[in-house]
């Protein structure tokens, strides 16, 4: 199976690959020279004009990229030029200077995915990935890649700090039902590339983000790190079927995009998929408390709307959960899990 991933290219980026090129996760797809801190350079003075008059002599508009020595303004043979490659931002009519942002050294744009470049345009490039895509419900952090490593024994098991060891360095660690902010902090300190979880407390995730933000401000966070939650917020385990799929793909290369909650696993077969509107006989996952994360079989659809404990009366189903209990659950809170083809 294959999926398409889009890499956005910022203004000024120069692609380093062509359509049809096979890229690796760490490969540079494009480069750009980002604008640095702004500086003022005189314009009116070299033209021997008043600041207001010199405005009429500008030969560039804000947003123009200039090479070193390129003309900013010209009047009767006199000219003001860019001292270095820069981005022209604004002209100050009061003091006759131009605000420019000198371009810094080339920065690489890394895609963090492996695949074939299928298209390139001004705004981005698309890469066809041979593998599976999992879309989660939330996450944090940038794009990372590494080999998958399953660190828990059960899909509902909490990922604890003690489960992160040197063997996890550079890997994407698959946990179970949650991880504390301390566990994430340790994982990051150990050089783990990213973490995939069934769920996590939103507060823990925010606490972790806040601590990382503080460390970034003092320059103490090397490397990238990402977390993706696949099932929900709170103590929610991975679906056992999905957990088994991860186990089957342990050691495969994967890419994690924390901010967009996406996981790509390369050379992987299709993962268990989900379908809204479950039917009798389906294996289902419940998404709201008190059954959040629970998997079971939909035994019967109730004939009439049924009121939940909250009082909301809706179409409901009888579900026999895999951990024992039988419960009536609103149909809207259930997703059917589709079996993996050929499994």
């Amino acid at each position, binding site marked *: 199976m294959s999926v398409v991933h889009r890499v956005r290219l910022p203004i000024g980026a120069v692609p380093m690959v062509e359509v049809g090129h096979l890229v690796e996760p760490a490969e540079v797809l494009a480069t750009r020279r980002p604008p640095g801190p702004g500086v003022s350079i005189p314009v009116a003075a070299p033209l021997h004009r008043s600041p207001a008059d010199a405005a009429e002599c500008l030969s560039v508009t804000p947003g123009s990229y200039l090479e070193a020595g390129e003309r900013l303004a010209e009047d009767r043979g006199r000219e003001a030029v860019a001292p270095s490659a820069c981005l022209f931002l604004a002209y100050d009519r009061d003091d006759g200077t131009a605000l420019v942002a000198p371009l810094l050294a080339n920065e690489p744009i890394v895609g963090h995915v492996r695949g074939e470049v299928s298209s390139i345009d001004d705004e981005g490039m698309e890469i066809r990935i041979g593998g599976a895509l999992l879309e989660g419900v939330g996450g944090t952090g940038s794009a990372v890649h590494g080999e998958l490593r399953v660190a828990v024994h059960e899909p509902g098991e909490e990922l604890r700090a003690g489960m992160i060891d040197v063997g996890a360095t550079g890997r994407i660690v698959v946990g179970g039902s949650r991880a504390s902010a301390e566990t994430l902090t340790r994982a990051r300190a150990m050089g783990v590339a990213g973490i995939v979880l069934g769920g996590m407390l939103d507060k823990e995730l925010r606490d972790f983000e806040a601590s990382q933000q503080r460390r970034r401000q003092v320059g103490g966070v090397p490397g990238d790190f990402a977390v993706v939650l696949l099932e929900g917020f709170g103590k929610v385990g991975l679906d056992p079927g999905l957990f088994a799929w991860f186990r089957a793909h342990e050691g495969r290369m994967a890419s994690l995009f924390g901010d967009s909650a996406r996981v790509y696993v390369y050379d992987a077969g299709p993962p268990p998929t989900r379908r809204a509107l479950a039917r009798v006989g389906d294996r289902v996952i419940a*998404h709201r408390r008190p059954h959040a994360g629970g998997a079971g079989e939909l035994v019967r659809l109730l004939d009439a709307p049924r009121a939940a404990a909250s009082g909301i009366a809706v179409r409901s189903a009888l579900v026999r959960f895999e951990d024992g209990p039988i419960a009536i659950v609103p149909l809207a809170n259930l997703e059917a899990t589709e079996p993996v083809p050929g499994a």
Partner: protein
Amino acid sequence: MTVAIETELALLIDVGSAWAKASVIGRVRGRWRLVTRVAQPTSWGAGELHRSLLERLDATVDPRLTSRLDELLASANRIECHTARRPGRIVVAAVSRELSGGAARRAAEAAGWQVAEVVTLDDGRSLADRLARLQSVETDAWVIAGGFDATRSPRALEAAALVASARRRGSGPVIWAGSAELAAEVAALFEPEGCSTVGNVRPDPRREVTAPLREHLQGLLRTVVAREDETHLAAIALPRAIGALAAASGLRILAVDIGARGAISALAEPDGSFDSRIHGGGGLAGLAGVASSAARVSRLAGDAGDEATVADLLQTLRSRPASLPETPEELSATHAAARVQAGSLVEDAALGPLDLVIGCGSTIAGAPLPAQAARILLDGLRPIGVTQLAVDAASVLGPLGTLPDGEIREGIGLLAEDLLVPLGTAVVCRGGEPGRVAMRVTVHRPGWPDAAPVELRSGQLQVVPLARGQEAELTIEPGDGVTLGAGRRSLRVQALATGGAVGLILDARGIPIVLPRRGDDRRAMVVSWRDALAREPAPGVERVA
């Protein structure tokens, strides 16, 4: 012998971003009545909606029609509205976070845009960081603001230059909402037709004027993002229906719909004119990840668990918007979130006294108990004075608003009492001192013996039974320093109250509601208000908290 019976059906469908609602109305003995309604997650699709309707109709209609239901439903007149397929994303670049930036952001949100990024020259970031943010953000449009009118602010030009530097030529419209003096210079930074100018959102240090930008952005949202028949957009249709209802009833009406993603408010005057706002981040999903929102919702709910639990729920509302609260705690938190968002809808609007407040959408109109819907409207909007409350339980207002002007009014007239479910009448006062009498209300019900006046102290909430269809004359005597919102403070106010599923709600909790600081006191107070509204009353017995 079989008797052939004739009937006419119409199907009113409101497809929201998370839930789709459908109502079937039919001509019954010469009158159009609501026959049945269903609601389901939008992701279940039209086929399932049709099947559910057939199932419901089968159990409802004359047995002689059951064999023809499929055919009748297929040929029914279909009137549909829907939420825009995707939110419009906008970037705000301004001089000041507090003044121009804040005003532009509020205008954009009130026009239904999702603000993807705000960059201001006082945001503490370096120039390079600002540029990097602007260059990396994906957006449909840009707003630039800064400089007071009649001044020439170089800083405002710098904000415009930032956008000119970060934006790809022709990649999305730019709106200049800053100093009028700079309009031509700013426009010159962009390609011809690339930048349009509206009135300054901050013409001077003391005034914020967001209406021109908001109105421009509302129009832009429809042309840039919606690209579909705009009359079928719920954000257009619902206000049209409210305008028609106001004109037909001669009432001043506010309608609010807190959706999964966005929210709509529509304020209509008795002459039928209306002002509507679409709040891109005003839905239940909008509170997830917002600093302090979980704590606020937890405080307001009182019985929904701690901040961490509520934070998880808010994220669930964002990530799985079609799912439903199963536990009382999750429902309580969801309703508290709706109250917060309802409050945000009107926080910068001078509403004035209203005759009728209508709650629309699944969250309010689909609340399990009428008292819960009333509480979202009351606590969120705080309508001062004497106001009728109702819900659009069948979700028909949006679909009706897609009809041509004359037909909306006709549709409203045809549905008559099936249109809205009245919750009752609220009397909300402002001012007064804690513990002192805030208002004394005498309720005269035709056919009932005159009862003693009800005395309400500041902070109290009381419900007087008044069933649907009943009316009562009220004599309200505000206490010292207490007002009902009338222009002139009166010693005695006469008003008419109509009954409903909740009754007559006397509310002296003030505007805004102030909760005790101590957790136990706060929880006790919040729960007592909830119970006062929700208890099933013994006939004629008041409920007090």
